């Protein structure tokens, strides 16, 4: 391997300038000739059937090209991989705000106006939208990995142990709400379809669109070089993508369709509400004897998705008795889906709050309690850790944060009119590499060698372009500005997605493998022997080649399977709560992360800060409120659905543990996409308890819960 010159450097994002100057094209920024505009209209009941749709007024308006409803929509394959239904295949309504039609017009304004003039009547069905009432119907999920996981006997340990915790933690429905709403341009040329569309999984979007439209994948091209955030909502694809293609086909013209911000609440998935019962049992000196994490949640009426809330609980702490269960019931709401740190962010709120409650009951430092129960191997499968940094994250963090200043006694530390508290929580996220191919193309002009690296990866805005350029530059011996990274196009070699924190590990290893492979091939082609392995650049120069290319199909190392491979972290928070009004200020947070090789400390830091900010939103403000009578979200815009504003965010510091673990993959990357949010809500809730003596077990923690 070459000497790393770029990997490990905190370099600016190479796409940064394009973005701040507006030069980066997001899906609907492409200038397509003769484009028409689609606007979706939605159901205003949660369950039942459309009785009549009156389009007469809408159709009369100028500029209207077509109106698509279930009556004239083509037959689509509803099992083709588009999530969440709403493909206009019939009159049935499954949730409030389900798409029931698309107006296509010459201008956006004409389409939006016409959509408002469509008159729909319904035959109302019995809407299942009241979580509290329905929760008792919850059953074992169909998904195999949500089966009950039982070790030992939790009930027995609970009744025989000296100290126990038995508490229920609730997290509400949340929405991803990335900056860029889901939007698409569809262009047909004969039977070939091009879709400009923000897609976290480029090849996934391609296959889902093709299968749903009943056409071969080779006829569908996805273009998505820049994505304005996704947080899981652009991992799977939703009806809006395919309906844009349908509209374009029906009018035989390109169509652009962007969801309105308000439509984002019932179009592209959500994080489901979870009611989590935690039971912990321990000896007087803090040795865990039992840990049970039981989640009740809802899914959509016609498909199942269950967030893995027990994921942290199954492996964070050593305990002889353990129980992880899930129960789920259908509701007439949009299908839940992956949302940043699925199961881990929400589950860690329950687990790490309960650990804090236990520490308090034991009169023990919560860090000490965690370290005391550190498992030597993964308790869920007995595999050895490839590496585990929980203890170091907690200890280094405690030192950097000034944890020793924390008052063990809650509710007594004051600064002016504010009660001050410190909180801590630990977290984890699995690390994986997924199959990804990459094509490396070298070209030489005189003494200049340039590289183009192509793969169907995606950059959510996190820095994928940059880390891949760093990787390729080092592996080829070429300066970074002579490396072009081409991603976000399904015609490129297939790649994993920017999902599940696998992006960096999958893409960078594929690029690295590709660069090593092309170097090997150049050396072999020259027929020469070398004492010191030359770089690809040197080979191109000495062999005077004009161009050379090679493709690699990279796979994760097989022996990774024999280990439990995870990122680990610890979060610290200092929170001030106003003693009379209950107003909450998170003065500072610290995130300590052990995530293997950090390719770019600058983009990594941003990623962790982003996770912390979202964790703060989860702790203090994010909640999508469902009206249990009608199934509509009462929080219907970003004025009602609160995410943190600048003023809500104090100082955020990040520390990365220096880790060299080559088990997960050659470059030792574990992934930092999601671990940054895991544990944050609990750290803040624990700090609030330390400040006020009040334990809030249902998120978000708003001022009214503290008075």
């Amino acid at each position, binding site marked *: 391997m070459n000497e790393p010159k770029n990997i490990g450097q905190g370099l600016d994002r190479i796409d940064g300038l394009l973005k701040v100057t507006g030069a980066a094209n997001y899906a609907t920024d492409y200038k397509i000739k003769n484009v028409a505009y689609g606007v979706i209209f939605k159901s205003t009941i949660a369950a039942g059937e459309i009785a009549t749709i009156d389009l007469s007024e809408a159709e009369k308006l100028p500029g209207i090209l077509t109106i698509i409803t279930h009556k004239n929509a083509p037959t689509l394959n509803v099992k083709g991989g588009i999530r969440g239904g709403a493909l206009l295949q019939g009159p049935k309504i499954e949730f409030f705000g389900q798409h029931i039609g698309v107006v296509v017009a010459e201008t956006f304004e004409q389409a939006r106006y016409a959509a408002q003039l469509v008159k729909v009547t319904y035959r109302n069905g019995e809407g299942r939208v009241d979580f509290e009432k329905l929760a008792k119907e919850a059953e074992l999920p169909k998904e195999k990995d949500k089966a009950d996981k039982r070790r030992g006997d939790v009930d027995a340990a609970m009744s025989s142990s000296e100290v126990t915790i038995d508490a229920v933690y609730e997290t509400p429905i949340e929405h991803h709400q990335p900056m860029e709403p889901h939007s698409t341009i569809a262009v047909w040329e004969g039977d070939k379809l091009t879709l400009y569309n923000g897609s976290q999984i480029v090849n996934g979007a391609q296959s889902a669109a093709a299968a749903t439209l009943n056409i071969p994948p080779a006829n569908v091209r996805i273009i998505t070089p820049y994505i304005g955030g996704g947080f899981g909502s652009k991992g799977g694809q939703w009806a809006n993508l395919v309906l844009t293609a349908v509209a374009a086909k029906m009018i035989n013209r390109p169509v652009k369709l962007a969801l309105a911000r*308000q439509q984002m609440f019932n179009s592209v998935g959500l994080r489901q509400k979870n009611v989590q019962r935690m039971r912990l049992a321990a000896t007087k000196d803090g040795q865990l004897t039992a840990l049970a994490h039981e989640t009740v949640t809802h899914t959509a009426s016609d498909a199942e998705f269950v967030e893995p809330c027990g994921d942290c609980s199954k492996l964070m702490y050593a305990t002889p008795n353990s129980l992880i269960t899930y129960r789920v019931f259908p509701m007439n709401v949009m299908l839940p889906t992956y949302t940043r740190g699925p199961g881990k962010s929400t589950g860690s709120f329950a687990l790490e709050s309960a650990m804090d409650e236990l520490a308090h009951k034991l009169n023990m430092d919560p860090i000490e309690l965690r370290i005391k129960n550190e498992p030597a191997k993964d308790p869920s499968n007995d595999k050895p850790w490839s590496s585990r940094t929980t203890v170091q994250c907690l200890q280094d963090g405690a030192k950097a944060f000034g944890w020793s200043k924390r008052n063990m006694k809650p509710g007594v530390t004051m600064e002016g009119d504010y009660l001050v508290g410190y909180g801590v929580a630990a977290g984890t996220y699995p690390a994986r590499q997924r199959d990804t191919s990459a094509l490396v193309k070298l070209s030489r002009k005189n003494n200049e060698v340039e590289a183009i690296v192509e793969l169907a990866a995606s950059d959510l805005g996190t820095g994928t372009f940059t880390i891949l350029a760093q990787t390729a530059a080092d592996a080829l011996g070429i300066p970074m500005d002579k490396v072009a990274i081409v991603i976000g196009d399904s015609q490129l070699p297939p790649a994993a997605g920017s999902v599940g924190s696998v992006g960096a590990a999958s893409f960078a290893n594929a690029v690295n493998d590709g660069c090593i492979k092309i170097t090997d091939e150049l050396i072999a082609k020259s027929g020469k022997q070398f004492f010191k392995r030359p770089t690809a650049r040197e080979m191109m120069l000495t062999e005077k080649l004009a161009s050379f290319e090679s493709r690699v199909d990279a796979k994760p190392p097989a022996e990774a399977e024999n280990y439990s491979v995870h990122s680990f972290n610890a979060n610290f928070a200092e929170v001030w709560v106003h003693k*009379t009004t*209950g107003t909450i200020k998170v003065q500072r947070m610290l995130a300590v992360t052990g995530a293997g090789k950090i390719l770019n400390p600058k983009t990594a830091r941003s990623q962790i800060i982003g996770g912390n900010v979202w964790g703060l939103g989860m702790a*203090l403000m994010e909640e999508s409120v469902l009206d249990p009578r009608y199934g509509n979200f*009462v929080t219907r815009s970003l004025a009602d659905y609160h995410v943190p504003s600048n003023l*809500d965010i104090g100082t955020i510091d990040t520390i990365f543990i220096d880790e060299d673990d080559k088990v997960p993959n050659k470059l030792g990357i574990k992934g930092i996409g999601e671990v940054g949010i895991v544990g944050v809500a609990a750290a803040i809730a624990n700090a609030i308890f330390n400040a006020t003596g009040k334990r809030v077990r249902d998120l978000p923690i708003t001022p009214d819960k503290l008075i």
Partner: protein
Amino acid sequence: MRPFKYSKTSEASKAVSIVSGSPKAQFLAGGTNILDLMKEDVERPDQLVDITRLQINQVTTLASVGGKAGVKLGALGKNTEAANHPLVRQQFPVLSQAILAGASAQIRNMATNGGNLNQRTRCPYFYEVSMPCNKREPGSGCSALKGINRMHAIFGWSENCVAVHPSDMCVALAALDAKVEVQGAKGKRSIDFKDYHRLPGDQPEKDNTLEHGELITAIDLPGNSFNKSYYLKIRDRASYAFALVSVAALLETNGSTIRRASIALGGVAHKPWRAYEAEKFLAGKSATAENFRQAAELEMKQAKTLAHNEFKIELGVRAIVQALNQALES
């Protein structure tokens, strides 16, 4: 958005005559509220008369009544300018604080003083056009009464409407006994702030007592003898959120004695709610935490809560006490 006619004028009388003569016409000022409502199909004017060119956008000194000069805010002045104007900051700091507690810097740069008074409720059922709402569609019913009503009224609501007025600025204006200067087809008049906004009663579609086509030309802030004041806003996040409860508190003190108090609450009623009970109690009392608490409790005793907003009573008490305390320190 439905198509509408757009016109602009730099003459107040012309603007008034166009809107007065056309039942579905409306004024367009900063547009930060009306345009949003039109996109959502909540407001459906057939005509917008752009009044941003009217030259009534200055902050000026108001002739004194009984010794103290006041301030006149032109209706088309921007919220940002009003909040930062030295005359306002020096003489009516509570108004400056209230304006700056609202919305965001970008919105305040667009929003006008007149528009702020006439902004409409943020009740989500008012916005959800598929649902009954008496304010949007008289006679259709109130979805919030038995719905999700955490953000809704605890004072002065009726079975027909439990929405609250969302403005921060207006809470300070209520406490300051401002006067709304208006010009209509029938001439000019001046409306006391307490009579400007309405309680819903059986006409929740009417937010205020303006006649259709009447134009706000200015907001007058009469001089006063309050020497202490504070605006406190309690909300779900530190900025860019509407109030759970807010308090504009003004005190005229003589040593530790309160000669007079003026207190208005936001986020609790269909209009900025003057806490007359609390004011009456405090007059002549000494400025102690205990008296503040008793005054606040007295006021909140009249509250009638809904399913999800019971917390507003205790929060209201605490907010009044806190605001009075901070006023005292000002």
